């Protein structure tokens, strides 16, 4: 089955309805086990118990970036193939991405204060991540400002695609500008294995939670549009 078969809303409802319970259950399991393990690891030799904030901060931040990535890809598909389901997929990812971004900023701030002595610094990573939140909020505002569904989706898609430039900037910011935020360490073998298990479980849990909620939101929007077309056909008929 190709992905374009799924682009048929009826087919999408069938397939997503089948996979959704499994993804949601896997998300719940990963989050519960990750949470328990996260409180059983010893304190870090430098950062003490604040290391437990890492199990929330890193998953929120990576999920926020991934959500923007899928939103930009869906936007590009919507723009090129003019498919309404791709527009719906992009639009419904934005509010979720914004919440994950806010959680990344809040937990980062609560980690920064005890470790750096500051809630906030205008460092490359923090600033580009704040820009990610502004991009999400701008995307949502733009979408609700244009009433016509197709025009709104097109304008939003362009904003989402241009804003995707910020993703590599966020990722490489800690390499380009070495300030307070630590460098990428997860896949560089710089984290003790004992911390990696809860971290990966939480990252998996956050990612699967995003996909579960995203699917429900796409399904919701399909129902809403179905209802609108029923009303429209009755008004005409």
């Amino acid at each position, binding site marked *: 089955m190709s992905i374009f078969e799924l682009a048929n809303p009826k087919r999408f409802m069938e397939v997503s309805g089948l996979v959704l319970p499994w993804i949601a259950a896997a998300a719940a399991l990963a989050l519960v086990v990750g949470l328990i393990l996260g*409180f059983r690891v010893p*304190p870090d030799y430098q950062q*003490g*118990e*604040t290391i*437990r*904030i890492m199990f*929330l*901060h890193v998953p*929120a931040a990576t999920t926020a970036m991934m959500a923007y990535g899928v939103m930009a890809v869906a936007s590009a598909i919507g723009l090129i193939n003019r498919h309404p389901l791709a527009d719906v997929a992009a639009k419904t990812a934005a509010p*979720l991405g914004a*919440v*994950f971004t*806010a*959680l990344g900023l*809040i*937990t980062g701030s*609560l*980690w920064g*204060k*005890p470790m750096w002595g500051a809630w906030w610094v205008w460092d490359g990573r923090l600033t580009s991540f704040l820009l990610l939140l502004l991009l999400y909020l701008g995307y949502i505002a733009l979408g609700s400002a244009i009433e016509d569904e197709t025009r709104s989706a097109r304008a939003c898609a362009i904003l989402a695609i241009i804003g995707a430039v910020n993703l590599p900037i966020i990722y490489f910011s800690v390499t380009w500008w070495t300030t307070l935020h630590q460098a990428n360490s997860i896949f560089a073998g710089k984290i003790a294995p004992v911390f990696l298990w809860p971290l990966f479980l939480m990252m998996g849990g956050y990612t699967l*939670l995003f996909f579960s*909620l995203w699917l*429900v*939101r796409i*399904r*919701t*929007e399909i*129902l*809403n549009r*179905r*209802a609108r077309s*029923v*009303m429209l056909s009755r008004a005409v008929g």
Partner: protein
Amino acid sequence: MSDFLAQGGYGLYVWPAYAASAIGLAGMIVATLAAWRKAKRALTALQDS
């Protein structure tokens, strides 16, 4: 227990981080499911009428 709550003296930072994350994730779940139920109800009502 109080050791657990103290989090090595960092409880004031660790617990708000967990509370904020719990509120954020739960809020998304509640809002998403509420919208789904509302849409489903509206469509059923429309099809029945």
